[in-house]
């Protein structure tokens, strides 16, 4: 079952990453159903935060430290996506 060094910490990180995937997929309900556009943006934002956490957990669980760089870039793009969509769907602007 364990991939990397095979100790208990590796299994802990991989199991937590698997449960985080389940919680991230649950966000898709709000992203599809959400009555307003802002509900969908919020659900995708939470899903992106969960993705960053999953990438960081996999970086330790699989022993691939380059996943941390991917997680850092994903966090930057996730924040930019939320603010940009919030700004450009309101006519008057001035969101923050």
């Amino acid at each position, binding site marked *: 079952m364990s991939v990397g060094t095979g100790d208990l910490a590796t299994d802990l990180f991989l199991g937590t990453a698997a449960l985080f995937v389940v919680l991230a997929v649950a966000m898709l309900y709000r992203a599809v159903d959400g009555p307003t556009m802002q509900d969908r943006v919020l659900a995708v934002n939470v899903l992106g935060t969960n993705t960053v956490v999953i990438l*960081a957990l996999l970086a330790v669980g699989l022993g691939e430290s380059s996943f941390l760089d991917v997680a850092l870039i994903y966090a930057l793009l996730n924040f930019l996506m939320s603010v940009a969509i919030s700004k450009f769907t309101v006519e008057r602007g001035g969101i923050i």
Partner: protein
Amino acid sequence: MSAVETARLVAIGVLLAGSLLFTLVSAVGVIRLPDIYSRAHTASQADTLGAGFALAAVALSLGVQATTAKTVLLLLFIFLTNPTAAHAIARAADEDGIEPWTSDDDRTARDLAPDRSDDADASEPARDGVDEEGGEPA
């Protein structure tokens, strides 16, 4: 296994369990709460703390090395930007004219959303039914 290693493993386990707990609270809140403002509230607080716990566990597991600095920077960045993004989304909802849900309100969040051409056909009959029952106090 030395005592320090055991303590570190226990700390990692506690941090991962805390992150799962807070992320579960955030997921239940985003799915179950009635309107966009309360959902933005739970997304900004519970989800940020869950991500912080998980990244702290990652940093603790990596120990003292260069990649730990990246993890700590990622943690600080998420602590700054996640509430900011939720605030921007909630403010965009307010500028869009979405009313907040209150506890003496029988309407659902779908009825409180402003009229949009793409989903107006689904919400129109429900809103008419509620308004005829006089759910809105004068």
